[in-house]
């Protein structure tokens, strides 16, 4: 299946080469997210839990941005990469939760 399927994909693939604009936008977005995160910490006097929340949120958004634009996950034919990463994240989440709650109880 694999080979003939991709052959047809080859024909329907877009011919235009994409420009750099999208990536520069992604870059600026990443910069902004990073700066917000650092600023939140540098500001210092915000409530700790709220800072944590901002930090995690910024990180997650940033990861989505990078995965989608730079690692081409939003493009067609990336079903298996997406599954791989999600599965990995799933295992990791289980472990982080454990680390937080059950290692020191």
């Amino acid at each position, binding site marked *: *299946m*694999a*080979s*003939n399927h991709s052959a047809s994909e080859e024909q329907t693939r877009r011919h235009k080469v994409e420009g750099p604009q999208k990536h520069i936008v992604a870059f600026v977005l990443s910069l902004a997210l990073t700066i917000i995160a650092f600023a939140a910490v540098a500001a210092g006097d915000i409530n700790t839990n709220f800072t944590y929340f901002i930090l995690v949120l910024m990180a997650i958004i940033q990861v989505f941005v990078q995965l989608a634009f730079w690692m081409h996950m939003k493009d067609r034919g990336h079903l*298996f990469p997406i599954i*791989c990463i999600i*599965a*990995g994240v*799933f*295992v990791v989440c*289980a*472990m982080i939760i*454990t*680390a937080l*709650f*059950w*290692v*020191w*109880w």
Partner: protein
Amino acid sequence: MDWLTTVDHKKIGILYLLAGFIFFLVGGLEAILIRIQLMKPMNDFVAADTFNELITMHGTTMIFLAAMPMLFALMNAVIPLQIGARDVAFPFLNALGFWTFFFGGLLLNISWFAGQVPDAGWTSYVPLAGPTYNGTHGVDYYVIGLQIAGIGTLLGGINFMATIINMRAPGMSFMRMPMFTWAIFITSVLIVFAFPVLTVGLVALMFDRLFQANFFEVGGGGNTVLWEHVFWVFGHPEVYILILPAFGVISEVVATFSRKRLFGYSSMVFALVLIAFLGFMVWAHHMFTTGLGPVANALFSIGTMLIAVPTGVKIFNWLFTLWGGSIRFTTANLFAIGFIPTFVLGGVTGVMLASAPADYQYHDSYFVVAHFHYVIVGGLILGIFAGLHYWWPKMFGRMLNEGLGKLTFWTFFIGFHLTFFVQHFLGLLGMPRRVWTYLPNQGFDTLNLISSIGAFLMGIGTIVFVLNVIITWAKPRNAAADAWEDGRSLEWTIPSPPPEYNFKQTPLVRGIDAWWKEKTEGNTAMTPAEPLGPIHMPSPSILPFIMSVGLFIAGFGFMYAHHWLAAGGILVTFVCMFFRSVYDDHGFHIDPEEEVQA
């Protein structure tokens, strides 16, 4: 020399089988020594510390160096054939995977000769395995040996995942794949997501032991429960890594020898996926007595029990595959049919263990030993034997002797139940596991004796199998392509053993059980999906071997703090990687038409 450089999946499969089986004999010998020591109370056949070394090496060897490689042997021998491919996705990595496993296993077992043997159990719980309480190099062998072998396993997992996704013959959609291929696919997924956890755990333990890090050192702020979590987050998926391929084998064998298609194919697939998914969320059932608290224990209890449901689906689907079939009792099928009830016995004791409050009594007693040998020996090992007898003609072109095969089955099977059935009771009567001896008059004596006798029977069964192999070797290579006549999947359409390139022309798959479908429609061959032409093959390479030797040397360097040696070993490996990257492997071409004339 040919064998050192081969990148052919069929040959690598045979290498895996050979190495894995030798390690099985070593692990079995260790088991026999364990059973001799436990034959009677207060026995002094081996010393206490030797006994701990024996169980540790027995468990580690059997799981990582015997069972997994033998499964890899079947995967390598069969998967590309079943999906109609010429080879795996990464033949070079395949060879590398074998050699790293081999040298990792070698390093682990050299500990016997170094006189410093791992002795903290196959689970290597800290602090017993940590530097404070384990000053010799024993556990270093465990840590580094497994690390190197683990690289091989991970590579194998990635390789087979990619192979099954990308290399299927035209027409073979996911839902037309043979069940063994499905099982290996899911197994590979488990490997890919479980082994890195072990890698990190071993790195942390290694840093603790070699560089005075404090991951698990209580005095340095470390945490011993963290190791338990890390080990079991890997460890529980690992047991499904072991059993799922066996499930796959049983699905193939049972269907073939009852001349029926597999009952409930899609629910079988779904069950596999569900087992794998749940398998990642139940690890703490090994830690019910660690003291995680009632919430964790309750959640993990329920999660664990749920696995019984998809597993049960598989069991009943096999039974109903047999139902209404025309069952032929070949050796392979005997092993498969022996598997079903035996595995159920082991599985249901697993569900008993899953009930946390009752597990407070079972945990670390012989009841657990009985449980896991039922699922492992009664499940996985019987499954491997079934697979070996079934695919032997395909791998080697010779049929194993059926008479001897049946003798193997009965001695091994009866010996097995003798050995491990009584161990349930030993555990309930209060016998902890990992004890090098026990006092008389505790109600353990007779049961232990029975158990040891059973182990000898299993030993005999194994020896009969070895004899069978040797005798078969002397026979001519005359197995038919469709050796069992009732073959259903693509591997039975090509000669036994297959030519180097497997398929002269990639076949076109027109349905589930591709070969069976053609046969029932009166065809004698698969429809080709491509014109006959020269076939591209990857060239053999010695680099995988050298890279593994490099890691092997580096392992010793780290262990004995010879940093130049460690650096040298790593350098060898990197230089090989460099060559691999710089010199393109253009491979060579075989022209099948010329072959025919030659």
